[in-house]
Every structure is written in C-alpha cells, then in structure tokens.
C-alpha cells in the first residue's frame, strides 16, 4: 500500500490582532492590554492515509477541520511539523472559487479547470462531460454574472468533480442545487469512491460519512481526538444520538450533507 497523505505533528497557529491602526495599538499598549493572541487551529496532528482509503473528517464547529483540509490541499502551510502528499489533489473544495462574473460560463469553465490543474487537452477531453453535468443549456455562453446561484454552483461543481485526482478532497456544503442535481452528485461521488481513489471528506452528516468513508478522524480543539472505525467515530462525537439518527438517514437518502 502506498502512503498518500502523511501528516506529522502538523501545527497551524493563527494570530488574532485586536487592533489594526497605530493609534489603537498604542492605546492598548499604554493600557497594558493584549494586542494580539495566538491560538493553534490545528495542534500537533499526526496521521497517515493509505491509497484507497476514504477518510471522514469530523468535529464540531471551530475544531480545525477546515484548517486541516487547507493544510492537506496545500492552501496553507503548517507552522510546525509536515504535511506531505502524493499525486494530484483535487475535489470539491470551494467549487466556483475564482469565477470571473464578467466572463461567460464557457470561459469560466476553462479558467476554473486550469486553476484546478487541468491542461487544455484534458479540459477539452472532459468538456462535454462537464457541460452535460452542469446542465446549463444555452446559458453556457452567457456571462456568469447573470447566472442564478444554483447555476453557478452547478458549473463549479461540474468542473471540480470531473478533475481526475489521486487524492479527492470534499468539503461540506455539497447541498447545492435541486434534488435531481443532488442525486446526480451522489451517484458521481459513489463512483469516485468505488474507483478506489483516496478520499478525504469533511462532513457533519453521519449518514453520508457512513455511506462514503472507511475511517473517521475526529478533531477537537485542533487536536486529533479520534482515529479509527466509522461507527465508533460517529459515536465518539455523539452524532448517533436520538433524532440525529433520523436526520442521518434522511441525509443518506439525499446523499450529501443535506442537514445544513
């Protein structure tokens, strides 16, 4: 088995500045107040992910999931420790980020694909598939500024999900589009998992985690609190309690992160 993600003692700290202008800073200093605070959003986290594993990253709000995801995807770099990965990383992170509203859907499709690391040839090869998935019809050659939010989301989603990745990252908020579109997304996600690609999935929805993942990581205040079996992980977070169970079922019916 090949190690796909290797995180060793990764720490990411953020500085909170309470004051921005010189005057405020001087006043705070004079009064002996704190001018800034440092906290670790991700605190000494270590784990490795093997090829073909599907990891569900869970945790309460503010537990550092997004920051860890950004460390793995390469948006942020750890202040201490190391994060190493193998192959191309892509997936459903910030779909549609970098859209230029002034440009047409077609132009944005190519731009977005390039941002996600696709070459021109690759984009051309996937073009029909992406357009088909986004289902924009004649709006493809209209400026994105005139798109409805659902259309914009669909286009971003369609590009992102069609990038061939060695590590597939998916962040929450997959609850885009209407029901048929969600169905389509869920089908596509299942295909991706079945194809044996390494997956890193952040979610609050126990249903979809059960559905997609083979292992769960739980973060608590930046520290890795749990690493292991899916059911145990969900139980660890008490996400399997009473009515949550029902919601979990509902969301697994819908597919992805429907309980937002």
């Amino acid at each position, binding site marked *: 088995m090949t190690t796909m993600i290797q995180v060793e003692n990764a720490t990411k700290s953020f500085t909170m500045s309470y004051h921005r202008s010189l005057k405020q800073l001087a006043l705070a200093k004079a009064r002996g107040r704190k001018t800034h605070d440092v906290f670790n959003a991700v605190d000494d986290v270590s784990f490795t992910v093997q090829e073909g594993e599907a990891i569900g990253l869970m945790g309460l709000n503010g537990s550092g999931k997004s920051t860890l995801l950004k460390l793995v995807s390469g*948006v942020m770099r750890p202040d201490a420790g190391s994060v*190493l990965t193998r192959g191309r990383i892509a997936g459903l*992170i910030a779909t549609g980020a*970098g859209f*230029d509203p002034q440009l047409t859907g077609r132009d944005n499709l190519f731009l977005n694909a390039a941002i996600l690391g696709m*070459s021109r040839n690759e984009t051309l090869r996937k073009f029909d598939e992406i357009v088909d998935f986004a289902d924009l019809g004649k709006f493809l050659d209209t400026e994105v500024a005139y798109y409805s939010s659902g259309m914009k989301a669909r286009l971003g989603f369609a590009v992102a999900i069609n990038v061939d990745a060695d590590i597939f990252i998916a962040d929450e908020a997959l609850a885009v589009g209407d029901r048929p579109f969600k169905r389509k997304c869920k089908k596509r996600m299942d295909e991706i998992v079945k194809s044996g690609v390494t997956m890193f999935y952040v979610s609050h929805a126990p249903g979809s985690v059960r559905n997609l993942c083979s292992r769960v990581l739980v973060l608590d205040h930046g520290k890795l609190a749990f690493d292991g079996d899916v059911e145990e992980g969900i139980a660890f977070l008490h996400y399997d309690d009473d009515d949550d169970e029902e919601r979990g079922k509902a969301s697994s019916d819908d597919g992805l992160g429907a309980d937002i």
Partner: protein
Amino acid sequence: MTTGSPSPVRRRSTPEELEALPLVPPAATGLAEVVRRRYLLRMLVRNTIQSRYQGTVLGWTWSYLQPAIRFCLFYFLFQVMVGRGAGMENFAVHLFAGMVMVHFFTETFNGGTQSLVQNRSLITKLAVPREMFPVARMLVAAWHTFPMMVILVFVCVLLGWRPDAAGMAAALLGFLLVALLGLALGLVFSVANVFMRDFGKVAQTLTQFVTFSVPMMYPYTLVQDRFGEPIASYYLFNPMAEAVLLIQRGFWTGTTSDPTYTQALHLPGDLYTRGLVMTLIALVGVVLAQRLFSRLEAKVPERL
C-alpha cells in the same frame, strides 16, 4: 504518462505510477512553478484582458482609441498651442514615449501590489502558486502597453523616423528594465499589502512621483541646467529615468531633424552601460523579491 497516446492526456494514476510519485508538500510554489503552469498563467492573463472591455460595443478598439486621443490632445497642446513645447522638437513624441514607459511601470507595480488582495477568494481557498498573480499583472500591463507602442511607432513614422539597431536595442533594454523592476516591486508590495494595506497607498504615492521624476514632461537637459551636478547624476540613479531616456533614444531622437545632435544635447553619456547595469540589478532584485515573497507567503491565506 503511460497512456502511450500522442497527446499527453492525464488520467488517474495507476497504483504503480502512484508509488513512483514522490511524497511532497501539497502545493509547489515559486516563479519556476509559474513557468511550469504557464497554461493557467495564460488563462489568467487572457481573462483579465477580456473582462476589461466586457460589455463595450467597441471592445479592444478602446485600448487604441484612448491612447490615440491622449496623443492628439498632447499634440494640440504642446505643438499647436504652446508652440514646439518649450523649444523642443516634437515635444509631443517626447512626452508620449515617456508615458508609454511610465504606464507600463505603474500598471505593473500598482496592479501587482493589488493582485493578491484582489484574488483573495481564490487564494484563500485553492492552492495556486501565488507568484502567478503579480506575474499575470505584469503581462496584462505589457498587453495594454502594446497599443500605445503601435500609436507611438505610427506617429514616429509619419514624422520621418526610421528604426535603427542601436535605438531599438535601447528601447528593448528600457522595457526589460521596467518589466523586471515592476515585477520585483510588485512581488514585494503584493505580499506586504496583505499584511498592511498601507503598502497599497505607498505604491500609489510612489507611482505619482514616477510621473514627475522622469524626463518626459521636461527634457533631461532641464535637470542639468537648473540643478547642475551632482543633482543631475543623482537624478540618473532613478531606474525609471533611465528607462525613459532609453525609449527617448529609441523613438524621439529619431524623429528630430538632426538625431545625432539631439542625442548629444538631450541624452546623458553612458546611456547603455547604465541601462545594462540597472537591468542586471533589477534581475537580482527579482530573485531577492521572490525569496522574500516565499518567506512571507506562508502567512498570506490567513491574513487575507
């Protein structure tokens, strides 16, 4: 790629291919990475250019129309109204040639400075080499400078100018100097601007100085006449003044009735040596700026 097909189309790696891949930090950075991902760079540049004239009927014609009108205005003001602008031959050309350089520089510098902040939504969410943005702004600036050059050449030809090798070399050197200088400053200021937005204001102020600190609205000889040495030599330490003098050598002097005389009168000695040395320094500046950029860049996403 083991697909064996002639077109290098990427597929999901096979387990064997994966094993052969190195375990590396997830996002590569640096100017080298910008060159490697030039397809993305091209897309960014193209789309920035495209979106500028989006929704206009005349489209890219505007990028010729605006400088053309500006030139006509200058011509009327200095050649017709003031009359041979302060006793200089073809003063309008002198002014416009300088403006081409200054425009290229200010757009590279100011655009570069704002580039990270403006692309905030992208940078905080997706992994792209962040040097990409200042570099893209430099290329966009170059693209917008091109129509000005066309107009400059057109006017010069009308005035009887013919290209000469030394002059073309001078102009090229000038552009290279400005490109490197603008890129170096753009890199440093873009990342500094993330930490303190004051740097954006500093950049704007500096570019205002540039307009007046180059021999464009006045000939270089004026500096010498008014202030003499050593101030005139200090004046020449300004790389932008050097770049503008280089483009004057490339175009303006050639339009005058006696180019050799104009050169001897209005251009300082050692024009080329100075230009070469400054270009080399600017190149070193880019390397240093990149170093600084990669040191500070790690903190950029969280500060945006």
